[in-house]
């Protein structure tokens, strides 16, 4: 719905005339439909995105709530209960030590999603700063920073994370976050640089220069807030990448140490019995796939919602 400001003006004046002046509120109500409201409306019209959003929230609720309310101790070893198939008592079955997988997958999700969000947050900060500085300053600095990035791009993803972990010498939540951040901030930096360079050419940036605004004001007030839409989309594009990266490392045995587990290490545990007890590997894998798919569809919906000009889908 496009509201013509002059029409709104006209309507509000009409209202004003009819009610004797103090009814500007009516006009104000019409104009409340802001950019964000339009975005929300566009997002809610995208079925895949809404379903994914619901799925994503359900997953988060499962991960947060189940360990609180579950009657089972996730680390309690009881071999008499080993390898039970999914049932009402144990919806996801039990593993080789008789531990309840319903609660262990939820706990694993806390670690996987926690690492995912923390690393995504960190890589957004690094990527936005690097890209913004590169694009904003331009010239030789831009060239140097981008060639450096090209060199990093040339190397594969996993070795980066593995080398970083090796440098730390320990694998825990925070070293995992750092390793995944180091390995995956490049794309964000590039896209942000492109954004800043495009925005820099805007008339309102010229206008800001024309009123004598200093560089930091132009960067933080006029440029970065306008990249917010893209940044939000990127959070949901990078989150699944990071979660997958973590799962991959854990599957290779470079993950969180037992008895703690992430989805990746749960899948690794189930890998050896995948013929006799397939649910051991299938359930954590579904959890990973669930998160990745919902996040991608949310990203897609957000992109369409925040930038109405793009209509094609990924």
């Amino acid at each position, binding site marked *: 719905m496009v509201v013509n400001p002059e029409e709104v003006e006209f309507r509000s004046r009409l209202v004003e005339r009819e009610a004797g002046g103090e009814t500007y509120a009516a006009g*104000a109500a019409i104009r409340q439909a802001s950019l964000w409201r339009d975005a929300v409306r566009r997002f809610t019209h995208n079925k895949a995105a809404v379903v994914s959003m619901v799925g994503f929230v359900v997953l988060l609720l499962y991960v947060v709530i189940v360990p609180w309310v579950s009657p089972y101790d996730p680390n309690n070893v009881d071999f008499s209960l080993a390898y039970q198939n999914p049932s009402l008592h144990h919806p996801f079955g039990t593993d080789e030590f008789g531990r309840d997988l319903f609660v262990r997958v939820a706990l694993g999700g806390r670690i996987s999603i926690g690492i995912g969000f923390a690393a995504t947050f960190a890589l957004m900060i690094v990527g936005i700063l690097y890209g913004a500085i590169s694009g904003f300053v331009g010239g030789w600095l831009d060239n140097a920073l981008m060639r450096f990035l090209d060199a990093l791009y040339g190397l594969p993803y996993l070795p980066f994370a593995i080398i970083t972990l090796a440098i730390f010498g320990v694998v825990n939540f925070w070293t995992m976050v750092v390793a995944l951040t180091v390995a995956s901030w490049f794309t964000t930096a590039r896209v942000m640089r492109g954004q800043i360079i495009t925005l820099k050419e805007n008339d309102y940036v010229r206008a800001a*220069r024309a009123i*004598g605004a200093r560089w930091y004001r132009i960067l933080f007030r006029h440029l970065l807030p306008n990249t917010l839409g893209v940044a939000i989309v990127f959070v949901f594009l990078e989150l699944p990448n990071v979660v997958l990266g973590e799962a991959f490392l854990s599957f290779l045995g470079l993950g969180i140490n037992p008895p703690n587990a992430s989805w990746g290490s749960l899948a690794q545990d189930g890998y050896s019995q995948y013929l006799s007890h397939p649910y051991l590997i299938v359930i954590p894998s579904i959890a990973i796939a669930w998160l990745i798919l919902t996040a991608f569809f949310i990203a897609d919906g957000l992109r369409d919602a925040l930038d109405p000009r793009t209509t094609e889908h990924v």
Partner: protein
Amino acid sequence: MALLEVDDLRTYFKTRAGEVHAVDGVSIAVERGKTLGIVGESGCGKSVTALSIMGLLPPSGRIVSGSIRFDGRELTRMSQRELEDIRGRQIAMIFQDPMTSLNPTLRIGTQIMETMQRHLDVSRDEARKRAIDLLEEVHIPNARQRLDDYPHRYSGGMRQRVMIAIALSCNPRLLIADEPTTALDVTVQAGILDLLEELREEHEMSMIIITHDMGVVAEAADDIAVMYAGQIVEQTSAEELFDHPEHPYTEALLGALPQLEGEGVRRGRLTAIPGRPPDLLDPPTACRFAPRCPYASFDDSCAKEPPELREIRPGHLVRTAHPASERAARPVEAAVR
């Protein structure tokens, strides 16, 4: 001494194909309280002249020579930092396209207050109060409420009014309006021009209006400089220019203007100017207008040496070998063509 004196300004742009001589020896002066109109077609160097004055040239452009004195101070030798203190405070500028000149993520009020908070020692409340006054001054109804709107709630004409309010917020002494009405509806244009003139008087500013529209300068300017291919080809007072145009290019521009009253209305066709402006990568050494000039003949000086800007009458400068008043004395040549 005039408020702004630009003397023999040359601004070149580096491109892959070579150096573009966008402004090639322009001298203008803006008197206090007067309006100077700069007229010319696209790419003649009008906007680059303005950006040179503001110190806002893109990285590829630089002022090669010449001086820009504002209130006796030399702008070309100032650092960016010093220029930042002058921009918005002493010299303000409004741009062609009001639809893109406002930041879509900031409220109108924030954007008006930004300039004041940058240059003046005012509190937030004072700045806000003054922002409301400014919006009222540019005739935005319900100023107090509309201050908190985002730009997409404003129409093109209203946005240009906001841009004017922003430009005026620190009481600048010179306002540069670069095609202020080009992107607007015809019905809105006249309103904006009236507003500019009204505010110029109220705030005792000088003004430079840059446009390709003879109608705009006719309405608003005291003096007019006509630019062609990076140079000034004719410069005089507005009345003199419209009553006695001397340069063939000025005549052609006026001939291309539709007339609604006077003799010949309805009968005369609008005349277009044949050809295109010369390539400024490699400007011709001879008269730059010669290839399009109906009076140029290739056996005379037009094809060989560039005409100088000369004072044909007191206060009337023109750069051509065939000014209108001298042509009449040599009717044969014109008849031969």
